[in-house]
């Protein structure tokens, strides 16, 4: 669990930020918010224009990676008047701490927002060991 990742110098203080990999895929970090209650952490990630079928969530070695492909391109005959319309991919990577029950992470989408639910692990209580 990399606590120190918090201290990484942050690039720009606003989001989404953008990067490009060697294959030319443009990655955009989506806007997101984290909230919690006594049972779980909730991560709400804005993925406008991304259908349910184009979202992938993986968890590997405590790294939760969310990828959402935004494939919308203007239909034939549509002339863009402003803005950039190349397809891009939303990507968010979060380190998941050891207080999360990794086996029961779930996700659902609604109206262009993906909600990840990360259930909290039962509190590890101090245990008395009997001497026999």
């Amino acid at each position: 669990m990399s606590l120190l990742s918090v201290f990484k110098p942050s690039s720009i203080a606003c989001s989404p930020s953008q990067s490009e990999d060697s294959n030319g895929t443009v990655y955009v970090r989506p806007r997101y918010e984290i909230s919690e209650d006594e049972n779980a952490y909730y991560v709400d990630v804005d993925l406008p224009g991304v259908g349910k079928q184009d979202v992938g969530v993986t968890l590997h070695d405590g790294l939760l990676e969310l990828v959402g492909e935004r494939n919308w391109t203007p239909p034939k005959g549509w002339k863009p008047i402003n803005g950039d319309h190349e397809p891009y991919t939303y990507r968010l990577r979060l380190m998941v701490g050891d207080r999360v029950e990794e086996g029961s992470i779930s996700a659902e989408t609604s109206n262009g927002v993906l909600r990840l639910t990360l259930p909290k692990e039962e509190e590890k209580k101090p245990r008395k060991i009997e001497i026999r």
Partner: protein
Amino acid sequence: MRYLSPFNSRYGITPFSGSSFSNFEKELEKVFGSLPSLFDVGGDWISDSGSRSVRPNWFEHDDAYVARVEVPGVDPKEVSIEVGDNMVRLSAERKTKSKEGQSSISYSQSFSIPDGVDADKAGAEFEDGVLSITFPKAEVVKPRKIEVK
């Protein structure tokens, strides 16, 4: 802790048990123990203001102009689009549930309509958090083929 190891090695730095170093480790735990166990590998934390502006992306095709606006998290029933004199006023409420109860972010934006559209026939669609508003072109503006006789 999944296996037995000296108490002070829990956070990776072992040999100085009882030294000030392990106290430092404990201090760290005190400070970070209360943070959510989620860290953004990419860097910054997102703070959010109560209201957001939304910028439409415009397209033109033979029959209409189309404005696409991103409003993630908004229930399509909570979107209001008012069409006035060459202007469109879009407002939408995004409700989020959290421990503190319901909070909301409002989106609002006014933008002008291109010339030569039939604003009365405007229509809107909503899919995956993207709203697209279509303004059909008035008959006169459509490209017409004029036959040479």
